[in-house]
């Protein structure tokens, strides 16, 4: 009996959480992304979410591109497929690794900071204070962050694609002995617009997930410093898992033909 009671409690808690996330999404879209628009807030958030994430996303992409080139070269040499390095690096980065790794890095960096900031604002009553100053917190806090996520993640991933492919190119030409011209030519011959676009679509979805989870957990944090810490952890963990799950779903949708 105890087991059943516990199971029931877990299921109920899960359903409550899902329900409250869905309601939050509704408020975020209906209230947060409709006028009044706070231009300055949106601009600030684009800088914070996008521009400040460039170094970490760029470095991740660079090293991943390089490591990918090495792996494919070593693995491919078992069946004389070393020549595929440039193509696989380009496809792997643009379709999968670029958006996923950038998404995860931004989740760690931005998702956590959004949850911590809004969580602190919640427990110190700053969010209530916004309301009493006739400012809708969804419009002032949530909308700009989500908008910034959806706008900047594709840009970040576009840059990550370029840097990642460049990482592969540097390793390929400097240490694996590829001819520079041939490497670039085979990359541009085989890489299609769809490959890049599919990655950018993924990125926009990931941007939505990261900022939404950051805002949701921040908004619902309670109980002082510990509560804010918990909100931060939950924001990062839930957005990381949702990114990986959404990546699978999007991959099967985008490449289903």
């Amino acid at each position, binding site marked *: 009996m105890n087991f059943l009671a516990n199971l029931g409690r877990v299921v109920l808690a899960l359903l409550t959480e899902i329900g409250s996330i869905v309601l939050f999404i509704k408020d975020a879209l209906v209230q947060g992304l409709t006028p009044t628009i706070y231009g300055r807030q949106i601009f600030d958030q684009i800088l914070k979410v996008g521009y400040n994430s460039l170094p970490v996303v760029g470095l991740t992409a660079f090293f991943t591109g390089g490591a990918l080139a090495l792996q494919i070269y070593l693995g491919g040499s078992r069946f004389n497929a070393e020549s595929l390095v440039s193509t696989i690096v380009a496809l792997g980065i643009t379709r999968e690794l670029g958006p996923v790794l950038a998404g995860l890095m931004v989740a760690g960096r931005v998702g956590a900071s959004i949850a911590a900031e809004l969580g602190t604002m919640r427990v110190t*009553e700053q969010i209530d204070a916004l309301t*009493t100053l006739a400012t809708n917190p969804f419009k002032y806090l949530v909308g700009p962050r989500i908008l910034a996520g959806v706008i900047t993640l594709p840009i970040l991933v576009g840059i990550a694609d370029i840097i990642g492919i460049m990482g592969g190119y540097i390793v390929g030409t400097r240490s694996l002995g590829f001819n520079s011209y041939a490497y670039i030519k085979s990359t541009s011959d085989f890489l299609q617009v769809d490959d890049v676009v599919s990655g950018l679509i993924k990125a926009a979805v990931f941007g939505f997930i990261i900022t939404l989870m950051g805002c949701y957990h921040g908004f619902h944090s309670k109980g002082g410093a510990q509560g804010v810490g918990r909100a931060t952890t939950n924001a990062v963990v839930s957005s990381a898992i949702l990114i990986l799950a959404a990546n699978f779903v999007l991959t099967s949708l985008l490449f289903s033909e």
Partner: protein
Amino acid sequence: MDETAYITLKDVRKAFGPKKVLNGINLTVPKGRSLVVIGGSGTGKSVMIKTILGIVRPDSGSIAIGGEEVTRLKGKDRDQFLQRFGMLFQGAALFDSLPVWENVAFGLIQGRNMGRKQARDIAMEKLRQVGLGPEVGELHPAELSGGMQKRVGLARAIAADPEIIFFDEPTTGLDPIMADVINNLIVDSVKRLGATTISITHDMASARKIADRIAMIHKGEIIWQGTARAVDTSGNPYVDQFIHGRAEGPIQMEILKA
């Protein structure tokens, strides 16, 4: 009292899950009067104020301001309704990302679309009214002491000349002298604006100073109300225990039961 009620709460109830926080609150405040609600921690004081503002939605009951039902207001109507309010929060709740003057001017700039320069002038004037110079306006809230933060919070609450002001534990955490300074500022600014106010506190010195009327809340119900002077001769054992700060009496703390 034969003054007509301006703020009226009728049988307001609110529960968080199984926990009943407001158990049928009935309360009236005449226009231009100052009501102080006293009561221990966790008796529903803050929740009561938040239901009036619409931050917390009551489960049932009616809240009317100037005869207008406000519990179901939404969107633009609600924003306009909130423009009539000012609130001083317990921890001041200043926005730590903004300098002091922008905190004070926030409701003017964001809520009322006033130009920044004009809003800044008003903010500096309000800061002066609470005894803070223009140099404080440029600082960030984290650089201020607790008493100064409270004063900035007060300046923010009165910045838009509201009709109704709420004070949530205005003196908690301050030394007695600073507490009295805040009390005086509250009395002064309320008089200047002619505002209707509800304050919640457990500081009796503060209650006596700022109240026209006092109401006591216990377990989500108003158990006594009367004029500020009548509080000493209420004959109500709960009120007597509270104002004299005794551990023994009809109010038992949770710790004793556990």
